[in-house]
């Protein structure tokens, strides 16, 4: 097989595998959310479908597909249909540039008369010939900043006051916190001298994780974590869908699969943000590696997934522990606390790194 054919086939396999894992993770984080929230409130959560309610996401998915897809008469149709697609598209796309392990190296083997391999490919869907993307972090920031359109347009196109208010709140909040989020990441870029996610992880070898890069990395991590909650519209920043005020916010007028798409987008965004936190602050796939060669390839992926799971759990934990902000508090906190903190951290880090060099 020629190099191009191998590349294309490998890319397709990787895309399918990663999307399958991502969507499964999305479905099961909903299950996790329901289970953990139930435990926090001293309930059982889903128990009926399968052991521990494990088949509940499957049942929910089937339910969403077979529900009637209402097309309301008063909506602006093109954007009403496009909004959930935009939301889900951008939330899934960003996973393409996230590296989740070193590289997969398989020596040549035979299937019947076929000789396959040797295969060597990075654990990353989109990568150049060197197995890396030198602006990976910027691509993720760009894609997540485009994700606002889904929410904003859904709110506008639904032509209902709750939706419009939810959409307005969401876009204002996401634009505001995106600035703090972006600036909080710059100290990490300065330290690792790269935008490449692989280079950033490689700079954290020997337990030099950025979270223990005291105090700069630690401050950056907390600013990032808080703005990431706001970016994904999760409690305590879930003002866009505050059910006691806005029914359900921007997706009030959506039903069936279109509603499910917003749900998927929210959880896929959570996964992306958790992946980014893992890569930038918790050493990505770095961890103890031992055993036979196949284990040495798979262990880094396992460590990566474990760290991402930790962040997903943290998300759920925070959501069911903290109450919601008031809207003016939310804006004041973003602009008057987080942003100055991020900028100060950036300036001090830049000075420190410049003097150290």
């Amino acid at each position, binding site marked *: 097989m020629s190099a191009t054919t191998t590349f294309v086939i490998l890319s397709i396999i990787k895309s399918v595998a990663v999307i399958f894992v991502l969507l499964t993770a999305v479905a099961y984080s909903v299950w996790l959310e329901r289970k953990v929230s139930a435990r926090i409130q001293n309930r059982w959560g889903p128990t009926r479908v399968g052991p521990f309610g494990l088949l509940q996401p499957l049942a929910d998915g089937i339910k969403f597909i077979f529900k009637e897809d209402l097309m309301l008469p008063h909506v602006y149709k093109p954007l009403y249909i496009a909004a959930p697609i935009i939301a889900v598209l951008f939330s899934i796309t960003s996973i393409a540039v996230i590296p989740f392990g070193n590289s997969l190296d398989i020596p040549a083997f035979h299937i019947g008369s076929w000789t396959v391999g040797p295969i060597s490919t990075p654990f990353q869907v989109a990568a150049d010939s060197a197995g890396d993307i030198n602006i990976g972090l*910027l691509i993720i920031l*760009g894609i997540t*900043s*485009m994700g*606002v359109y889904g929410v*904003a347009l859904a709110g506008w196109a639904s032509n209902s006051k709750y939706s*419009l208010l939810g*959409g307005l709140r969401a876009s204002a909040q996401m634009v505001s916190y995106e600035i703090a989020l972006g600036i909080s990441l710059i100290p990490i870029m300065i330290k690792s001298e790269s935008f490449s996610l692989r280079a950033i992880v490689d700079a954290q070898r020997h337990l030099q994780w950025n979270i223990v890069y005291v105090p700069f990395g630690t401050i950056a991590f907390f600013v990032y974590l808080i703005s990431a909650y706001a970016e994904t519209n999760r409690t305590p920043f879930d003002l866009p869908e505050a059910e006691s005020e806005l029914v359900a916010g921007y997706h009030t007028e959506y039903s069936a699969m279109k509603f499910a798409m917003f749900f998927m987008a929210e959880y896929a965004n959570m996964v992306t943000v958790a992946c980014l936190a893992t890569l930038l602050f918790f050493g990505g796939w770095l961890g103890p590696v031992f055993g036979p060669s196949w284990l040495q390839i798979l262990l880094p992926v396992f460590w990566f997934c474990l760290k991402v799971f930790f962040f997903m759990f943290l998300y759920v934990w925070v959501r069911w522990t903290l109450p919601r902000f008031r809207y003016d508090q939310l804006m004041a906190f973003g602009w008057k606390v987080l942003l100055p903190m991020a900028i100060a951290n950036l300036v001090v880090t830049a000075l420190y790194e410049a003097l150290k060099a």
Partner: protein
Amino acid sequence: MLHLPLFLIFGLICVAGAINLLVQKHPINSALSLVVVMASLAVEYLLLGAEFVAAVQVIVYAGAVMVLFVFTIMLLNAGEEEHTKGSRVALLLGVPGIAIGGVLVSWTVLRHSNTAPVPIGALPGPPKDVALLLFHDFLLPFEITSVLILIAIMGAVVLASRPEAIVRRLRRGEPAQKAQKPEKRELAVVGKER
């Protein structure tokens, strides 16, 4: 090998988006066409090998500036535009202007037609090269531009800030406007004229 077809396709998308921007009657459709223009421009930069500029284009223009456009349109609840039939001044000045511009562009292109095309990737693409250009070779223009933007920000702050009298009245706990009959606002008919 795939670069040239992709470049042409996205160029066409870009131009189509720009035309659609002018043709569409509803401001939100125009704003979204502008997003398409910005995004396809980013792809063009990427295909030319300027990956950093492409990423910044998406983050700043498509992701931030245009979101604010859409936000404003949503906030003001702007309805459909009414197009006029066109003005005579535009016709008298615009058509010769387009002709002169077209002639200038094609003259420049034809004059330089023998020079070798720039191969893809020869332009400064990686962030390091761009940074060297910005903070070393073109430091002065860069700083002057930032001062220009600072002036714009200060202007916006001045325009948005409330006059002293109103601030003083607010501190005393009085309403900002002197007591008038409350305006009749029809909050319930959000987007009725759409």
